[in-house]
């Protein structure tokens, strides 16, 4: 699935550049390009149109934020900022400039890969992408669940909730985070409605909604989507 993706890594540190390139090559990404400075990165972006840019912030000459702003004038390519600056204000600057995610150095290779995969999944979902659950299959593109030969349509809010759970599959998603996904930053008082949506999702996706195995309640905290072919934080 990753062979057809093109990744561009931009950093002025040659050793780090080589290490990150190795991580993506070993993870099966077909085309991994590198650039040592901003202008080179912009030229490569224009010529090769990568699917994802891993961009360092602190570079001599043109810094990462400037590269990102320049890039955003002509392209909506997803960008993951990779930087030695971890202060919150730097993160905000990155997001304001149009970054899709932000990862502080030092990082674990696996975390970098997970974040890259999550961005790619969000920004270019595979057509006809289906999620296999223990008792059902969810067709995200068509907002439908197929179980026992039957098809159950998903409402817009149910689909939003399922996407959120799927993006964090194997991880607990708190009640507040789920409510916020559906109704924005002022979500207080929505918990009962959320419980209703979750019940409806279970009725469509679980063999026995009273004993759910895919959308699991984590008492007091929220819910977790468990996929049959994944363990822990894996997909």
């Amino acid at each position: 699935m990753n062979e057809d993706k093109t990744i561009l890594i931009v950093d002025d540190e040659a050793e780090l550049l080589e290490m990150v390139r190795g991580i993506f090559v070993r993870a099966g990404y077909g085309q991994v390009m590198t650039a040592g400075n901003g202008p080179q990165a912009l030229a490569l972006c224009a010529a090769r149109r990568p699917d994802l840019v891993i961009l360092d912030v602190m570079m001599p000459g043109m810094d990462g934020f400037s590269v990102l702003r320049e890039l955003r004038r002509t392209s909506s390519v997803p960008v993951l900022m990779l930087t030695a600056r971890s202060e919150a204000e730097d993160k905000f600057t990155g997001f304001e400039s149009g970054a899709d995610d932000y990862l502080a150095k030092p990082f674990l290779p696996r975390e970098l890969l997970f974040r890259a995969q999550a961005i790619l999944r969000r920004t270019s979902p595979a057509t006809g992408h289906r999620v296999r659950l223990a008792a059902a299959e969810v067709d995200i593109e068509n907002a439908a669940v197929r179980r026992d030969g039957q098809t159950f349509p998903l409402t817009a809010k149910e689909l939003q909730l399922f996407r959120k759970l799927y993006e964090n599959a194997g991880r607990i998603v708190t009640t507040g985070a789920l409510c916020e996904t559906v109704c924005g930053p002022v979500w207080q008082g929505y918990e009962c409605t959320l419980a209703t949506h979750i019940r409806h999702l279970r009725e469509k996706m679980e063999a026995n909604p009273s004993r759910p195995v895919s959308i699991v309640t984590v008492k007091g905290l929220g819910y977790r989507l468990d996929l049959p072919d994944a363990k822990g934080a894996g997909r």
Partner: protein
Amino acid sequence: MNPVRRFFRRYVFSTVGLLALLLFTNIAVLVVLLGISEVKGPSDRFQIVDFCAHLQGGGSSWQADPEAIGMLKEERAWAMVLSPAGQVAWEYQMPAELPRAYSSGDIAQFSRWYLEDWPVTVWALDDGSLAVVGRPKGSMAKYYVSLGRDYYDFLTTLACGIFYINVLLVVVLFIHSARRVEKAMGPILNAIRSLADGKPVRLQEDGELAEINTSLNRAAAYITRKDNTRAEWIRGISHDIRTPLSVILGYASELEESGELPPWAREQAGAIRRQSEKLTSLVADLNLTTRLEYALRPIDQKKLDGVELARQAVSEVLNDGLADCYTLTFMEAHPGRHLPVAGDPALLDRMLSNLLRNCIRHNPGGCRITVTVAPAPATAAGCLFIIADDGCGVSPAQLQTLNRGGPLASTQPADPAGEHGLGLRIVRQIVQAHRGRLSFSNTSPHGLTVTIWIGEK
């Protein structure tokens, strides 16, 4: 209210109070003096009345008893009684040069002024006779004042008006003077307050207090330069160390997971990876604690839900994977109730995360950890975060140190996890930055309980 304003307001109030006290004292002294003069002062009317009571007779024949004579002697006075016809009917020690007969005009004149320079007092007797008592020359002053009623009322009103205007003037002048002091002192006091809060200070170096302003500016510049140098140094180190650490961590992690390497090599790569992660954590903590210490990290005051904050912190720890020997439970004292707090979500999350990871780090044999969120006590709004474990806990001496806010080294003397002691320091700094409260207690029968209160405003 601004403390500087409060200080000067109190100054003005106390001054006005002093003025009122002064006024009251004056009035009290006046009343006392009047009372004393009423009791002890020369009361001619009384004396002459008293004297007249000892006179007997009528018409042209009058007698004074020995007591009356004694009273005159005591006063070194002379006396006479004028019959209704103006003839002297009785006399005592009367100067020879004085006439023995008086017309009504003479009587009208001396009764108000003097009789040949002798100050005299008069009293009308029952039969129309007139008793006259003369004092030694120069022993009394006699003034006769006669004013028109309108003019008298005007004078009284004027006197009162002048009195009140004076009082008002004193108060206004005083407030004006206090304002001037406030104007001059206010910026200095504010600057000292800002210095205490670690904020930059820049005062105008002119006016009467220019010298103090210059000194304060110099002190502020020195403190800022020192703090910035230290913070920049740590920040620079932390930045410069991140890239090499990324390479070490990245390759070590790849080698640890590589199937082509023998187990011992993967184990060694794992050790490098773990130590690199520790270094990463140390660098991040050092950077954060410095930024909090020198107030370089702005506190983002947002309205948050305390329950959701705790949920996210607990979920993060669970999502990162928790060994089977630990149980982590989340509890709400009042399920379904929102507990609003004001604060920086990233910092508050860091605070809870540090405490939870502390429980795990200091209890390598496992423990049960409970995170409870509860409403603040009735006297305060906000939220209580209670993180309790049933692990090894701390000694009473360490507990005392923790509650005293003393230097927070690792709570474990021989810490196998190699804790650098910044975790709790950061927790304390975050609580202080949010004007919250932090306390430590022992969990029964063993373990440690940390209680944090974060307010709503």
